[in-house]
């Protein structure tokens, strides 16, 4: 686990070094710039929305609504979940590894949620078609995974 955490830190620090440029590019690129600006002003025009913790003159908070903050939020969730994952899995005894494998496999079928959203893109025919196929695939993963895990576990329970 330790080496992993270490590498995690490194990864984070890296992204933290690289991101600025990415974002500058983002801001530098014609269309997005306007929007980000818009967002920032928007932020200022609505103090009452109080999406900003520091005084209105503070930069980083006023753009809370901006894209990059959403990204960091997601990153935070991502990192935390990885920790949770490592901690809870490490505790599972070998006997249960096969069920665990199929069980977690079923969970990874969560993509079905994404698939449903994608299938909702009525406007783009291709998009929604692919969405449909994705639903089928992911749903097989989900249902198959949970069922087969259940089957296995019942055997353990018998005793």
């Amino acid at each position, binding site marked *: 686990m330790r080496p992993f955490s270490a590498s995690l830190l490194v990864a984070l620090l890296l992204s933290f070094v690289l991101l600025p440029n990415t974002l500058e590019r983002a801001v530098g690129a014609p269309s*997005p710039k306007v929007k980000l600006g818009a967002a920032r002003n928007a932020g200022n025009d609505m103090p009452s929305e109080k999406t900003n913790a520091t005084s209105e003159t503070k930069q980083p908070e006023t753009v809370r609504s901006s894209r990059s903050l959403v990204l960091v939020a*997601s990153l935070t*969730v991502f990192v935390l979940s990885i920790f949770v994952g490592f901690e809870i899995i490490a*505790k599972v005894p070998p006997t249960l590894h096969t069920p665990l494998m199929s069980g977690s496999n079923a969970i*990874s079928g969560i993509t079905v949620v*994404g698939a449903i959203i994608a299938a909702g893109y009525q406007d783009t025919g291709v998009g929604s078609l692919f969405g449909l196929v994705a639903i089928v695939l992911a749903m*097989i993963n989900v249902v198959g995974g*949970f069922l*087969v895990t259940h089957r296995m576990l019942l055997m353990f329970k018998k005793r």
Partner: protein
Amino acid sequence: MIAIVPLVYLVSAVMFVVGIKLMSAPRTAVRGNLVGAAGMALAIGITLFDQGVSGYLFIAMGLIAGTVIGTSMANRVQMTSMPQLVGLLNGLGGGASVLVAFSDLVHHTDQPIDTLIAVGLSGMIGAVTFWGSLVAYAKLEEWKQFKKPYSLPNQQMINLGLVIVDFLLVGILAFSHSMTTQIVCYVAITILSSVLGVFLVNPIGGADMPVVISLMNSYSGVAGAATGFVLDNNALIISGSLVGASGIILTQIMCKAMNRSLGNVLFGVMAGSGSDSNVDEIYANVRSTSADDIAMILDGAQRVVFIPGYGMAVAQAQHAVKELSKLLESRGASVEYAIHPVAGRMPGHMNVLLAEADVSYDKLKEMDQINPTLDSVDVAIVIGANDVVNPSARNDPKSPIAGMPIIDVDKCKTVIVIKRSLSPGFAGIPNPLFALPNTLMYFADGQAAVLDIVKAIKDL
């Protein structure tokens, strides 16, 4: 009502975590799995509700189709081919990510850099997972064309190249503003990654497939998480990274049990490394035997140990074995089972099978636990195990499985090996054990063999 949807996603994510936690004890495992399933149902439900009635029929079709297929697969599969199934399901998950990312791409114009990067990565990881898993599946199903690991000259250079190009394409995709460029890049990425997936898994020996599969499990998780970044959807991000972590850990555990590094498994190109040569002389004086002789031997035995392996799974012999051990115990012998951590094709594979046959926990001994006591064993019955009892792991430093901890059955007074032939195990190497003076081979299908022995004993 705006925040309900993500909030429900959070709830179901928590249910996944709680579910996995419950799965860490046999007693609560079933409930754990159900909690997980409930969480999934919740997530799907709220998403449908959120989608509005618009595409319902459309979506419903997909869901139903998936459910039907998934159910039948889950009900049909035998415990032996569990690894294949898991592998297949992983693949499907990966495939789904590829498709979702694509439809998101074509649906939105002018997305922010990080979303586009996520799109690219979903495509990449998803495709690798999909094809990698399929190849793994084929190998586990022992399809001829995949049976022997096959790799191009300096395969690894090629793979590296593919990865680099992939990343370049992701970069282009991310920074280009024309939808067409983006789509072209995406398709290219998907194709290259598919090739990469095949190239990565194809050179790996079947014996290492379980490692590959749990790695793919991890990938499918990561792919899901990437898709989560595409859709800014925490449900995907959380669950995806949970699975990603779980896969990695299982992989590490397996590698440790085979005492090989992950790198060695992935690039070692181990299986069948030129030990085909002196097979005949190794097997020069193999002695084979019959059910009746075995019955005789067992008649006098005080302490009997079964060493099950993949073969028991193939032969579905677990019930027969259980019957035999009941019989032996009724005649006053003590019976144990020595479980090697990587016996079979998945971690805990043997435990599942023996659980199915109602063998009680306390009779299952882990390798480290039973090895020291083996020399006091009268008869060791190796049923369908091969690599996990191969002494060359201890003796022959040049052997591809050198250093892998094994169950030292050769220490037992008498060793009976039940398998159909002298053909190698999944490591594809000969096993000196079979030629040892205290070893007797009984060539037959595992189940038939054990039943014959039972009959023979009853006839004594």
